[in-house]
């Protein structure tokens, strides 16, 4: 055993920069995520379901290649709405809570890093994993659609992919907030699934009931629907692919007439709020709470 001893006057280099630490943590998180079972299963499920949607819409046209905007994009939008938030919420929810549960969080915090570096690193790593999953799934769908000769616009696939990723970022951010608040990973994931159910089903159904029972004005209906990031994603992708929202009936027509080209900015604003606010809150919680 040679000279492992440290001299008291040893001059150490300064700690690594925030950027470097964040990237190190992000790569670590990406590697862990990609090797995990959830990533594999979600990616598989997303791709298989996407391919099923593509095949069904190809078959439904009787080989004519006719689908207009059609069920293909609608089906994929629907699929993204169902799978991506669940994937992002549960990935985010598991991230910090499971480290905390294993004692890994305090061990990491005992290293020369800041807590916000850990949060941001994990966020970026998981975001990259989600982007990989989404682009693999949708890319495979695009290849199938091209092979089947469906008249689907390639731009619409890029839009869909980009917006799905943005939705994933928002949901990941919410998941990570849940994760910093929960003591146990199982509680965090449970809460995430509850939030998912709320966003996917309950809020829409409640709003539908409200629209029918209270005869909500379409302005109100549109404004309220902007609160739900899933609705924002849906409206934005329809708007981006089709350049209008009339397929969504009176409320969609109202939105386009009232806001026109501002709609992109409005949708983007809603999404950015959903990404930044929970992440900032998570950062505050993480810096104040004991990592145990």
């Amino acid at each position: 055993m040679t000279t492992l001893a440290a001299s008291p006057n040893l001059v150490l280099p300064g700690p690594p920069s925030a950027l470097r630490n964040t990237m190190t943590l992000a790569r670590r998180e990406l590697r862990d995520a990609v090797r995990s079972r959830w990533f594999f299963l979600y990616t598989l499920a997303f791709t298989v379901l996407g391919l099923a949607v593509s095949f069904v819409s190809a078959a439904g046209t009787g080989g004519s290649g006719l689908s207009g905007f059609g069920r293909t994009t609608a089906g994929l939008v629907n699929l993204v709405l169902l799978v991506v938030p669940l994937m992002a919420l549960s990935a985010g929810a598991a991230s910090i809570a499971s480290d905390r549960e294993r004692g890994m969080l305090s061990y990491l915090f005992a290293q020369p890093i800041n807590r916000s570096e850990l949060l941001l690193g994990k966020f970026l790593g998981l975001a990259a994993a989600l982007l990989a999953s989404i682009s693999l799934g949708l890319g495979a769908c695009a290849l199938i659609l091209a092979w089947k000769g469906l008249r689907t616009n390639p731009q619409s696939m890029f839009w869909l992919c980009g917006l799905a990723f943005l939705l994933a970022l928002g949901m990941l951010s919410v998941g990570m907030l849940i994760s910093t608040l929960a003591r146990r990973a199982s509680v965090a994931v449970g809460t995430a699934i509850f939030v998912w159910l709320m966003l996917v089903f309950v809020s829409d159904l409640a709003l539908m009931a409200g629209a029918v029972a209270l005869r909500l004005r379409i302005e109100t209906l549109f404004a309220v629907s902007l609160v739900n990031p899933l609705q924002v994603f849906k409206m934005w992708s329809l708007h981006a692919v089709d350049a209008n929202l009339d397929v969504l009936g009176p409320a969609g027509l109202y939105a386009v007439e009232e806001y026109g080209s501002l709609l992109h900015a409005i949708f983007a604003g809603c999404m950015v709020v959903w990404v930044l606010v929970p992440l900032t809150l998570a950062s505050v919680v993480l810096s104040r709470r004991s990592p145990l």
Partner: protein
Amino acid sequence: MITIDHVSMKFGRSVAVDDVSLDIQAGDSVALWGPNGAGKTTLIRCVLGLLRFRGSITLAGHDVRRQGKHARLLVGYVPQELGFHDELGVNEAIGFFARLKGLDRVDPHTTLDHVGLAGHGGKRVRELSGGMKQRLALAIALLGDPPVLVLDEVTASLDAVGRGEFVALLERLSGAGRTMLFASHRLDEVATLARRVVEIDRGRVRRTTSAAEFVARTEHGAVLHLHIAAPARQAAMRSLAEGGFAPSLNGVGLLVPVSPSQKAAPFRVLAEARIAIDDFEVVTANHAADLAARAHARRETTP
């Protein structure tokens, strides 16, 4: 090197650390001694900046809260148990923590060789035994050759053999010049590794002594280490106290100081109370004296 100045820390309404001040010079080796719940681990977490506390702690002049990154860069930390991601590889773990410590060129083979893990680099962390995991943690702690080593009951989850090996390894690697702060409730660890012992109880520093004095004072003849399943420990404490003993709790069971002629007496008391004993060790006076002698020897060889 480590300055702990009037540090207090509460969990809700219970006081875990109560106005502790401690100055640890570079090259010193300090054991925190005390029963479970005394506040040893909490104090160590404060030193690492993991908890919010009142007072101040500085490492080589860096405030652990305001300059946490700088402070922690000086520290190698070994926890009681590692909880790595299941799929993480040993070499990967080393590379990852090396980067966090700002090191670019780290040879995992050499690093692992130092802690006797040569040839295990390709394994997953979960494939390692408990003792090997702790050695990996030590290897990671020593990355970048930090001037301070902080250990938190590092042998608590190891069996007798693993414990012995690990303490021997620590003794070899801690070397001269490195500042050490560790929590323990094992006499042999304290005797082997510490130069000073800080006795803590209910969050307060009760006494600070040299390791040699501490070991000498502790030698009542013998100390029985009784391994008792957790649910029965409180009952065992009561029974032994009623039987005229002065037991204390540690991580796996009870420590009972006994006179050399009455080493079996606690067994009788517990048998009557129908409390099962899983295992036991006897640290005899001779053994303790041996440890004390080693501690004296260490003091004489170091400047």
